[in-house]
Every structure is written in structure tokens, then in C-alpha cells.
């Protein structure tokens, strides 16, 4: 059961304004699937628009194990030049 915080505009765009939810997931792969079931379309966006911070560390490895008290933050990805 990871604690998920969701930042603007992702919260409004996909989660009806909710910015904090609990999800049962053992990895980010599972988490993304679970979020997509709740809010269809999120998985496509996750591929290209979302960065994930697990316990304060931005991670690109979606297999990173999530524990019961992991904090996952969904951050809009910033594109460079």
C-alpha cells in the first residue's frame, strides 16, 4: 500500500483533483497499471509526461520495489532544450 502524491496538472487531469491516494502496488509497473485502471489514459501519459520519485528519489526503474510505507510522488516531467 504505497502513499501516492500527485502534483498539478496531473491531479486535475487524471484524478479528479485528488492529490493524495493509497495504492496497493509492489512496483511502479504495478502502480501505473493500478492508476490506469482507476483513471484510464494515465498509463499513456506516464510513459512520456510523468516522473516518479520514490521516497524522495527520482527513479527511472519502474521495477523498484515499493514497500507498505513507500511514498511515491507523481511529478510532471520537465523537458529540456
Amino acid at each position, binding site marked *: 500500500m504505497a502513499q501516492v*502524491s500527485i*502534483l*498539478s*496538472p*496531473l491531479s*486535475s*487531469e487524471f484524478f*479528479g*483533483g485528488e492529490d493524495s491516494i493509497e495504492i496497493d502496488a509492489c512496483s511502479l509497473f504495478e502502480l501505473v497499471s493500478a492508476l490506469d485502471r482507476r483513471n484510464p489514459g494515465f498509463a*499513456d*501519459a506516464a*510513459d*512520456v*509526461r510523468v516522473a516518479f*520519485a520514490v521516497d*524522495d*528519489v*527520482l*527513479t*527511472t*526503474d519502474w521495477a523498484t520495489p515499493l514497500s507498505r510505507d513507500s511514498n511515491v*510522488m507523481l*511529478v*510532471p*516531467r*520537465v*523537458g*529540456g*532544450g
Partner: protein
Amino acid sequence: MNAPQDKHAFRVVGTRPVRPDGVEKVTGKAIYGPDFVAPGMLHAAILRSPHPHARIQGIDTRKAAALPGVKAVVTGADFPSLQSVVVAAGESSSDIIHLSRNCMALEKALYEGHAVAAVAATTLQIAEEALGLIDVDYAVLPHVLDPEDAMRADAPLLHDDVFTKGAEPKPDTPSNVAMYVTLNRGDVGAALENAAVVVSGRYTCQPVHQGYIEPHVCVASWNADDQAQIWVSSQGAFSVRSLTASILTMSQADIRVTPLEIGGGFGGKTGVYLEPVAMLLSRKAGRPVRIAMSRSEVFRATGPAPGAIVDIKLGAAADGTLVGAEIDFKYNAGAYPGNSAHSGIVCSIGHYRVENARISGMEVLCNRPASKAYRAPGAPQVAFAVESALDEIALKLGIDPLDLRLKNAVKPGDPQPMGPAYGEIGYIECLEAAKAHPHWKAPLPAGHARGIGGGFWGNYGGPSTAVVSITEDGSALVTTGSPDIGGSRAAMAMMAAESLQLPYERVRVTIADTSSIGYSMVTGGSRTTFATGKAVVDAAVAVIGTLKERAARMWNVEAGQVEWRDGEAICLADGKTDQRLKIGQIAAKAAFSGGPISAEVAINPGGYLPGFGVHICDVEVDAETGQTFVRRYTAIQDVGRAIHPDYVEGQLQGGAAQGIGWALNEAYVYDAAGLLDNAGFLDYRMPVCSDLPMIDTVLVEKPNPAHPYGVKGVGETPIVPPLAAVGNAVSRAIGVRMHDLPLTPDQVYRAARRKG
């Protein structure tokens, strides 16, 4: 190899060798985008909308197609119809339909210069003549250029399929506001009410073009078997491949993109404009097709950075501690949704500890070319407002502007704007370096004034692939898929040489085409030396492992009994100690010890760290004429570690110059009809050599623990501080707060005069 090493232990990293592609580039031999020729190639020209907003009711291309020498004509109708899906575009993302439509309009032209048709012919003259024979039936629509005008209820709507992302409740009517992003923490209202000083104001800056000197150009060849080749100078050949494949609904394996030398990009060459058009023309004509933009087309149809309107309220306690920030900004995204609002939020006050903040940002669509990434996209505009407001606070409280920033600057462990804690960042170190710099202490001559500006960029990692292989004579070859836009071949060779402990000259670097190496993201976002560099080092380390293994087999010892030192294998096994095998000796026998020696590494590294900087600018203002002369300039930045200091300094200097241009003179000028009136280098005034002083640099090196040599990435950050550094200097020079860029002589004169 994972922890940064003591700098003095490096042999190659931190030195300044000649770049491997240098001689080709100083002798005119290097093949850039416009230099490439394919056998039998046709030349194409693009018909562009003369209206900023018009419905395309019909296009008659029959006369053009009948002109002798014309081999193919393409319009928006030739593009496959697509399902709306957001795809990665460069380092950001876009709806594939919008990307396709920006390459060629279908139902509406959304800005002057929007492509509406293209012709390929045996000569460029014939193609251009044919454009004149195309009859487009336009119904001209009202246009809008300014973001606040575009937000009005009666404003012309650009798209009926754009709904404000991030708005609550989820909107059911389309809008010119493409995105709305917010960040809230603490209680701003109370904080500002209790602040000792609150400054507020509206700051604006104009859209500016990246200004690369090489115009866009490509050659495409699409064969009857549906396999295709594209030769292009781009920041990302893989990005060209994936976007072209998506737009044309092709398999990515069928498109081979060969990167040519690239004449500047700064974010502006991370997408596609011409490639899908050239592909369609090529398929119709059955021959390779070249399309090259003129400079005017570059200005009319390719991406500026968004302009901005920023309203800010910033409050501080009497000792200078920042207590609250309220910021609302509107970015002018141009004709299609962009991606810069997020970074506007992040980079607004992310370099300071401000407990209470309410920040909101919008991207607003207007009838201008679609905005495109430009060096730290979205950061300089809002940083200009924040750093100007800070300067006002410093003046009001009588605090040294560097001390004010030092008091509030973020440190490792402080929270980032989006939440996670900062790692080993170096803003404090930069500010301290600024304070210690002779420039900061130098007395100002009469009529001169000094301004500073701070700022940062988050930098990035992203996927990269690298191959290191050992030749039969024991030299090393590095292959990557990251185009070299400013000397990165040198950095790759240096990191590989450092790792392999070979002389720099024994390592050579190739940028491969998309069919010859695995995926790499664009060269951009200050990610290449970090991410591709890490892949190169990892591959070199893997190769060292192989070399040790092969030496062990040659000595008949365990691999663990071999050490790699000074580019040689040294045997540690009893009875054989001090036996050595040079890399060439191992390489010569590679075929008999297990086969050729090489390693490919493909990674998506985390652990990238932001780069912080502070710039000091001295100006002299002629109050009578309003002319501003930049007399001295110093750029200070935490670069993690400089692999090749010349090219790191160059990034700081180039970014500073671009920022100075943004601050002083660069702007688009539109007439009442919505047509661009300065689509050339004469009246779009980028700084020339005589406009600038030497740009001093200080490379603060606080290594990144996640990179084998401590790299953080440097390219984006240097364009963030200059807008305010220049603006603050001019404001102090004339005693009037300057809110609106560019600070042309006309503007400065009028501001000084209003003051009287």
C-alpha cells in the same frame, strides 16, 4: 568507479585537448545538414500561409503538378489520419496530431508561415515557380497574438480539440488555455500580510528564437519497399525516426536516420518540421527529396521560446528571509500546446527556501509559430520576474543582493519545489564564489551599474546507448547515438580515455545512425555528458573487465588476479607478478582469446542533479539615448565536474550571450495583420561580436555522486540568470525598475524620461 574520484587523480578529465572533430570543422570539410547530397535528389519548396489564422477551404495543385520538372506535390490531405495520442517529442511530449499538423496544415492555418503544401521538382527554381501555381482557397479568420487577448471569451479559438489540462473541474469546452499548473504550500496570504516588505509587479518578456545559424534542412528517400532513409542535422536522430514513423504510421525499423553535423539547435532541433514532408514527396516521386528552409522560413515557422506575462508578489522579513511568494504566469505557447509551464513552476523559486507559495502557470495558444524548447525551456521567463523582485527587496531592505540570495538559497537536503529533497547541489557555493570574485568587488565607474541574477535548471538523465570497442591495434572506438552539438565527442573520448587509462588520442568517437546503435534520447536538456557519458564510462569499464579476462587467459591465471593499470594488464598471480600485457598485445590476440573485444551499454540513469548559477553584469547606460552597453560580465555555475573545461566555459558564455540578447534586443515584431515583420537576422537583433565584452566564467565543481566523473550537466542553466542580471543592472543604472523586455534604447529612454 561509481564514486567521484579525487580531481588530481585524473589524467584526462579536466584537461583541454583538441576536439576530435575540430580539424574537419575549422577547414570546412565537416558535412552539415545543408551540405549533404543524395544521388538523383529532387529539390522541394514549401508553400506557407500568408495569413495568421485561416480556414483552408480547398487547395488546387493541378497547375503546379503539371509544370514540367515537378515530380510530386503534397498537401495536408496526403498525411495519414491519426489517433490522438501523446508521444515523446525530443525531451518533452506532444499530441501526435498536433505534431503532424504543424508539419503541414490540414483544415486551418494557425500562423503566418504555416506549411500548407509542398512541391518537389528537378530544380529549386521549378519547385518555387510551382508554388506560385497552387491555388489555396482561404477563409481568413480573426487572429490573436497576445496570451491575455487569447484568454478572452470572445477570442478566436485556435483548436476545437484542446481542453485546458489541469483545470478543475475537467472542462467540457475547448479553450486557448492549453494547460494550467499550480503549486501551493503554506499560507501565502498570511505570510505576505505579516512580511516586513512585499514587492509586487508585472514582468513581461517576448518570445525569442533559438537563433541557430544553420537553417533546418533534410534529405529523405522513401523506397518502394517502404524502407526509408533520412539525412538530417538534428539534436536527436532517434527523435526524428520515432516522430516521422508515428506521423507517417511506419515501422521504426524501416526508417534509418543518419545524423549530419549540426549547426546549432538549443532545443529548436529536437522535433520534426520538414522530415515527414520530404518523406511523402519522396514516396510520390520515387526519388530522394531535399528540403531546406530559408532564414525567413526558420523565423516564421519554427519554434520560439514562449513569451511571458508574470505577475509576482514576493514578501520578506526584515532580515531578508523570504516568507511568501505569489506568482501567476502566462506563457505564450504559439499555435500548439507546449510543455514549458511545469518548468516555469519548478524554476520560479526552486532555488530559494520559501515556506509559503502559491504559483500558477498557464500555457496559452496564439496565432504564432508553435513554441519549441529553447535552452532551459520555461525557466528564464519566470526567473526574470523572481530575480528582479529580489533585487527590489534588496534595495528596499538595504541588503547586499548576494547576501539576500545567500540567506535564502537552497542547500542539499532542502525540499525541491515538487517535493523530493535536493541532493548535492551547489547554489551556496556559486553565490560564495560570486562574492569572492574580483568582478563583484571592483569599483563601478561613474555611469555604470551592476546587477546580478541567479537561477537553475533541473538537468536530466534519459536513455542512452554507447559502445566501446577495442581495435586490433589496441586503440579504442566509442560509438554513441548522441549528436555532437558543442564538443561532446571530446568529452566522450576523454571519459573513455580516463576510464581505459589510455591517451586521449588513442580514443576516437563516432555518432552512429539510428540503425547502427541502440536508442539514445536527444542531445538536449543538459543530459548528454551525464547520461551518454555514463553509458560510455560503463562500457569502458565493461571492456576493461574483458581485457583483464583475456589477459588472465593468456597468462593462465584467474581473472581476479589481473589488475588494469596505466592502460596495461598487470598480473598479480604468484610467480607471475609484474608480468604485463599492453592493451595492444591483448587486442592483437583477441581473436584467439575469445573474439573481438567490445561492450555495449544501454542505460536510463537516475541521479542527475540540477545546476545552479549566478551571473554578474555591469552595464553603462547612456540616459540620453537609452542605449545599454554591457561592460563586464561574469557567469558562475556549479557544473559538477567539467570534463573539458573549454566547452563547459563555452556553454556558460554562449548561454549568457543568448540571455543578454533576450534582455536587450531580441523580439518578434508583428504588424496589425498578424504578419511577422522582422523575419531575418537584420531586424531580429541577436548580439553581434561588438555588442559583448569578454564573458568571464567560474566553474564551481561540486561533483555529482551519481556520475563516475561527477558530471551534472551545464548547457541549460546559463540562459536562466542573464535576463535579470541585465535587467537589474539597467534598473539600478537609471533608477527605474525595468519590467518589460527587451530593454531596447527606445524603452530605456522612455523609462528614464518618465522618471524625469
